[in-house]
């Protein structure tokens, strides 16, 4: 074999091996299990902002359930407080994600500053719980360079902690700011609707912890599901529809100030 032939054959062999190798996808057992999920299920979440009082029990329950260190200033779910004054100014905050509830009437302005608003100046005020929207068209799945963030057939977007490289592209890609780096595992982290619970027929930790029924989860593909009935028959809103992500967290009483 002369050098020319040798080079030709090497190129052929490399190309021949690369093509089938590129087709192979390495799946973790957890991912295989998730992909086997029933496609007659599409999990959706319903938040009733009229019922939320900002007690923060949901945030606390979520942290305990999902191994998010209590003191860490990141959280899978949080509650925002909105206060609109009569002079047209909007104030909003979510100190520590409302982990301990809103115990003070003062608005946290950051950098150690607080704003006191008199009751008589308030036009309207409300609380809005937030969590991962489990988008139909999730930008985080689109941008993940290694496929560590993926969507199960039942719509829930999951993260493979053993495969995530920690680039932060998914955090940047999410228009809702629900993602963060796990303080212990240093991988991308977010709400997964307590996937380990809902697959066993349980409610999510936050739904179970809410004493006011402000949070509900259900199967939108089941016409008899109480959550599906509300979403399909009542006027509900979604966050940031302009991004085309098609969120599956629906809100009753959503206000234009909420972004």
């Amino acid at each position, binding site marked *: 074999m002369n050098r020319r032939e040798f080079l030709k054959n090497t190129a052929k062999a490399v190309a021949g091996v690369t093509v089938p190798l590129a087709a192979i*996808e390495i799946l973790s057992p957890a991912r295989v299990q998730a992909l086997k999920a029933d496609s007659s299920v599409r999990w959706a979440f319903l938040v009733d902002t009229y019922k939320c009082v900002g007690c923060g029990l949901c945030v606390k329950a979520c942290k305990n359930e999902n191994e998010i260190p209590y003191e860490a200033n990141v959280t899978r779910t949080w509650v925002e407080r909105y206060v609109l004054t009569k002079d047209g100014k909007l104030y909003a905050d*979510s100190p520590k994600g409302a982990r301990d509830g809103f115990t003070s009437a003062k608005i946290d302005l950051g950098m150690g500053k607080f704003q006191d608003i008199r009751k008589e100046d308030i036009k309207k005020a409300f609380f809005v719980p937030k969590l991962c929207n489990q988008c139909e068209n999730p930008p985080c799945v689109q941008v993940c*360079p*290694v496929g560590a963030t993926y969507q199960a057939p039942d719509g829930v977007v999951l993260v493979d902690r053993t495969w995530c490289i920690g680039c932060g592209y998914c955090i940047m890609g999410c228009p809702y700011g629900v*993602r963060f*780096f796990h303080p212990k595992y240093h991988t991308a982290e977010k709400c997964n609707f307590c996937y380990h619970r809902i697959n066993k027929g349980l409610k999510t930790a936050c739904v179970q912890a809410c004493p006011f029924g402000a949070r509900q989860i259900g199967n939108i593909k089941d016409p008899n599901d109480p959550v599906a009935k509300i979403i399909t028959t009542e006027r509900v809103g979604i966050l940031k529809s302009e991004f085309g992500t098609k969120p599956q967290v629906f809100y009753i009483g959503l206000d234009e100030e909420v*972004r």
Partner: protein
Amino acid sequence: MVHGELWTLKELFVTPNEYIYWSVQIVMYPFMTGLVAGAFVLSSLYHVFGIKELKDIARFALVFSFALLFAAPVPIILHLQHPFRGINNLMTPHFTSAIAAFGIVFSTYGAIVASELWFLYRKHFVEQSQFLKKKQDKDFGEKLFYLIYTALTLGSFDISKEAQHKDEKAIKILAAIGIPVACFLHGYAGFIFGSVKANALWMTPLMPVIFIMSAVVSGIALCMLTYIVTMEIRKFLACKKQSPTYSPECREEIKSVEVNVIKMTAKYLLFFLIFAISLELLDLIFRGYTATKSWDVLRSVIYEKDFNSIFVFQYGIGNLIPFILFLLPGMTIRRAVVGVVLVMFGVFMMRWNVVIGGQAFSLTFAGYMHYHLPIIPHDWETLKEGLFGALAVFIMPFVLFFFLTKIFPIFGLKESH
């Protein structure tokens, strides 16, 4: 402590998970890839378009581009929370992600530069290999170089006129293919940002083009700077009486070559600088003119919070002053040095303003985040994602370049191409 918390200060309404996640290493990443692409384009101006005035700097720029190539992925690896899993990107590339394209674009580009270098230096490898082969009583260094040069010939010892002609043709083809690939390499770095729809500042189709133009500008500037420094060292060595190459004529010759090359290259730098500035200003004007929902917060960041870093450092010191310096007649080496240093500073600030500025406001459009670059490191994270990490990345290509020039000499070679 949560990643990002250490260097992020929050003001007004910012949601709990928001921090400056992409820090100085992600500023360094497009800056370094930009230098790679720019240096290659400069080298190709001679090889493809036959601009003879750039002949001297073309070879220099190609070797420097190769040195920069190794430094380009380092910032990303330093930034990863799991750097050892970086290989996953190549093992399970997820092609809807712009970052996943990195492995392919980068290795294609690397292969082109390496091949072009090989064709350019093949004759040198063969000559050195044969010279060292014949030499009796080789010392350790000579034995090592003999092995390196012989390996680098890849068994191709034909240096006849005909073979050299083929080499020249191959260089031309590779340089021509290399230009779009270099642009693609940096265009895709711009795409990484431009395609993030969640970020109001980044979301523009102009981003890849803006990145390409400023890349060419920064690459040319760095090549000019390194060229000047190298020539000054040569001049200094030629001045030394102990030096075997000492001669006043030699010194004058080096000086005149240096001035001619720099004058010519500065013209191309100016040309690309005009494009880069125009595109950036166009983007700014367009955003203000269309004034979509995000404009309120963008305006407050651009004209108030980041005013100094955008208008004073980037446009003023980094663009306007060097623009005037290069436009003024009678270019001198000293003026060129000031100009290119400012140009590079301007391009760095552009990257900074895109990466850090893009994260300076909350997704709620009602709050701000301020980034404090970690200067004194107190753990691994503040070391690699702080000032020292960034400096290490910047210095790396110069060290590599020094060692590469031992194998790929940039001066004193008989030019056949």
